[in-house]
């Protein structure tokens, strides 16, 4: 148990602090389903905080809070890997030699920072009754942009002309889709 837990924790932290090194060494050996769990939990906590913020202002009920958390998990488990897969298909044309599992895992693990921010935000939301979805949730999602650019660069042999526009589109889509969710 200890043998499994240590690399998971270490990979999450190094994806947050030193993503370039983690992408080169840790991602290929990281089980793909655990990377899905990272993005699932990260978005679960982010959306849960959004629900809690709306509940605190009296705009939504407790049912919505539960639904938000559940929707976030689905978003992180379905949408983010799909984006990783889609980017892999696009980059296949640019002689990408990484396999699809690596692409999906690296995209999901880019949200390691969002997971850490999500845990902290949830603690502050519940214990101190703060509204945390923007301060912690959005900050965590923003943190994912850097590792995501680096993941795309790894797939394109350091090509900024491809990696930066793709990361920009993905970041904008995540931001807009989350905002639409908040308006439901």
């Amino acid at each position, binding site marked *: 148990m200890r043998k499994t837990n240590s690399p998971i924790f270490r990979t999450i932290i190094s994806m947050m602090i030193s993503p370039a090194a983690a992408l080169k060494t840790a991602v290929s050996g990281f089980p793909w389903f655990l990377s899905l769990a990272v993005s699932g939990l990260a978005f679960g906590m982010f959306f849960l905080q959004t629900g809690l913020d709306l509940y605190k202002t009296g705009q939504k009920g407790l049912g919505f809070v539960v639904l938000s958390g559940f929707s976030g998990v689905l978003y992180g488990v379905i949408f983010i890997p799909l984006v990783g897969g889609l980017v892999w298909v696009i980059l296949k044309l640019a002689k990408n030699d990484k396999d699809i599992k690596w692409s999906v895992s690296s995209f999901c693990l880019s949200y390691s920072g969002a997971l850490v921010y999500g845990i902290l935000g949830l603690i502050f939301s519940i214990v101190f009754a703060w509204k945390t979805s*923007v*301060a912690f949730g959005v900050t965590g999602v*923003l943190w994912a*942009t850097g590792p995501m650019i680096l993941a795309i660069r790894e797939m394109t042999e350091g090509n900024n002309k491809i990696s930066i526009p793709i990361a920009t589109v993905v970041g*904008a889509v995540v*931001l*807009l889709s989350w905002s639409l969710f908040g308006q439901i």
Partner: protein
Amino acid sequence: MDENLYSGSAWRGLLRNLCFIAFGVTAFYNPLDPLNPYSIGFGIVVGMLLGWLFKKFLRGFLGASNSKLKREKGKKVIYYAVDNGMLFLIPFAVMVIIATFILKWSMTIGFISAGIMAVGTAAAIEIGKIVNKREIKNTLISSGVSFLFSLTWTLSARILVKAPGMLEGGISLLRSILTQGGGV
């Protein structure tokens, strides 16, 4: 490599300036008076000043800690690494524009801080790519400079946000003195 150091540097400079202009304009954007020339002008000046200082500090510190590399390949190699790293600002600039003008958010400091931190990581990676070796000192230096700028921006933006209004008041007063001799 030497040809690469010069090619596209004007574009990189233009993109960097546009990103910092976006950061400045969105930081001082007033939703009640969106086309206020004082807010927009002040935002452009502060954004470009922050960008210029950040570039100079990052080049200075990375240059000082890579004196051997500078001697061998010239100072342009450091400029190239920093300018390429600055391209990582683009996704954050696009996202802050979406957040301010489409989602109508007012708390956008996080976007700028996250962008500046991403540049720190990227500049160190670019130097690592040139020397074919990742050195922890470059990561520490560029992250340290980025953190200082991120912190400075976070703290000063809260104070500077009052400046466009004061500037507008001052210029109106001066104009009234010049045209009406200060009389009411």
